[in-house]
């Protein structure tokens, strides 16, 4: 996706102007700083990219599906077995197991007699969820969904009253909170997708909130409730719901943030006033810093003042450094139309280089923030901040200071070692 380089000398190529051509902003600079050393895939989407709304990477290691993890724990099976059972096994196979007919599917061999006896109710839920799943998109209005996308199937194709009746009866018959919660979630989602927004809110109160049980599936129901609140123009409550989903989901933060953005522009002032926990405040400041007009270091300061080890601070530092890379490591250096010979005034054409005073000031501010972190006695992951400080000296061609910080990087993780090597080689 980006241009990674690990060789020694990079020189600018001065150009006077752009010609008309395909343009990819993430390929217009040398990327030597790996933002992914924040080492938390949950927050990778909020690293910096100028090509799409969210940063994308193939390195989503260890980011398991949170729904499957809950099933894994509930059913006491391994992740792969839970994933297969929920996402891949056919409904017919599960019905065969429930009816005592067995199944020819060898990947369901873990479902032995003891498993079936213990988890009959869960298998019944999964079977019904598989029946509903293909229809779980919003009903069409005028041929499209209410946000305009074409779909193959939608919730309106099912008998609304019948499905609601089945879900209510199942909820009432169930004694297990986990399964009750999932039936409650299905009720809220099904009503929401059928545009029965007030019913969705009522079902949330009657079948979800009442359980006082809040694993991540509870917040999936809150997300559905938020959609109904937004449709009813209760924008402040909708934003609160989407934000609660944001802070509790690890797989769908992009979706939650997108919902906030389209809900009356996301009222962060209101969210900040209502934030209670450090985690809530850190995530709000992260999203404020994620707005690329804002200075990420302003949010950074707020976060580290209360949580020096917060991953959100690392995300904002990585974003600030990536911004600087784009300014200091351009593939081509171009002069403004009224100053065509600007490159001739440079003392050296060897990258990194910039002549913009605002960029220099931002670099100084970023370095000061990074070094200040290293002075914090409560800091745990000093290596991250040694790497960022080293890189920020390297950008200034201050190789001695950069080497000093690099020498303090002790952790042997692959990413840290690669970043350490990359900075050392480039300098």
């Amino acid at each position: 996706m980006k241009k990674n380089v690990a060789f020694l000398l990079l020189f600018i190529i001065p150009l006077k102007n752009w010609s008309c051509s395909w343009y990819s902003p993430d390929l217009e600079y040398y990327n030597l700083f790996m933002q992914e050393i924040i080492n938390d895939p949950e927050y990778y989407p909020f690293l910096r990219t100028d090509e799409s709304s969210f940063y994308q990477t193939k390195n989503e290691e260890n980011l398991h599906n949170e729904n499957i993890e809950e099933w894994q724990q509930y059913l006491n099976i391994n992740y792969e077995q839970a994933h297969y059972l929920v996402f891949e096994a056919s409904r017919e196979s599960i019905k065969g197991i429930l009816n005592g007919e067995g199944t020819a599917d060898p990947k369901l061999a873990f479902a032995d007699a003891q498993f079936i006896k213990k988890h009959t109710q869960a298998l019944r839920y999964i079977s019904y969820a598989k029946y509903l799943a293909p229809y779980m998109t919003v009903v069409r209005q005028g041929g499209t969904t209410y946000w305009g996308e074409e779909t193959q199937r939608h919730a309106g194709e099912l008998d609304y009253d019948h499905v609601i009746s089945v879900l209510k009866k199942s909820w009432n018959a169930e004694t297990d909170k986990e399964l009750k919660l999932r039936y409650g979630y299905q009720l809220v989602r099904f009503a929401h997708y059928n545009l029965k927004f007030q019913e969705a809110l009522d079902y949330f109160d009657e079948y979800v909130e009442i359980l006082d049980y809040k694993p991540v599936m509870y917040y999936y129901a809150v997300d559905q409730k938020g959609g109904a609140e937004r449709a009813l123009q209760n924008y402040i409550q909708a934003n609160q719901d989407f934000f609660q989903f944001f802070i509790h989901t690890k797989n769908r933060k992009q979706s939650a943030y997108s919902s906030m953005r389209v809900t009356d522009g996301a009222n962060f002032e209101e969210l900040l006033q209502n934030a209670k926990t450090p985690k809530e405040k850190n995530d709000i400041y992260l999203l404020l810093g994620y707005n690329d007009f804002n200075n990420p270091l302003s949010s950074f300061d707020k976060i580290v003042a209360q949580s020096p080890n917060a991953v959100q601070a690392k995300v904002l530092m990585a974003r600030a450094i990536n911004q600087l890379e784009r300014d200091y490591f351009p593939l081509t250096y171009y002069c403004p139309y009224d100053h065509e010979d600007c490159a001739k005034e440079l003392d050296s054409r060897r990258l990194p280089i910039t002549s913009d005073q605002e960029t220099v000031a931002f670099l100084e501010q970023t370095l000061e923030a990074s070094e200040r972190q290293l002075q914090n006695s409560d800091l745990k992951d000093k290596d991250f901040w040694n790497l960022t400080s080293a890189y920020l000296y390297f950008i200034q061609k201050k190789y001695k200071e950069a080497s000093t910080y690099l020498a303090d990087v002790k952790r042997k993780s692959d990413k840290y070692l690669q970043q350490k090597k990359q900075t050392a080689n480039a300098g």
Partner: protein
Amino acid sequence: MCYATANPITNTEGNSILELPILKDYLGTINEYPLPFDIDLALYSWGIITNHVGKVKLINGISPEVLTNGNFKEIDKNTFEVLNDVFLHGVYLNKGFTLKIERISPKILRETKTYLNSKIDRPYAIVYFHLDRLFTDQFTTNDLL
């Protein structure tokens, strides 16, 4: 449309909403225009925010009166420095950003109307943009007639 006489993003001096000398340049041959027309005048104000790396964006409906809460310091005529991270009309501003206010004052409006009255040799109506109390409260009825 007798406003938006300059680009607010690139115009660092003057008032990009309306500068009467620029308007006079535009309207030098207005009486040769072959069709009937009315005149559209602006009443709005906005803030032009410049961030930490020189990027610029606009916030609508900002007047100097809302900048009196200690979070802003006037560093030039109609130009303020943001002293603390603060929300302004829902927009998050960071310490160090600058904010330039541009507005149509009753004086500019009167001068513009006087000029138009003397310049244009045919009947015309005036249309104001836009009629929010936030803006209209700054003018008397006579200003707007």
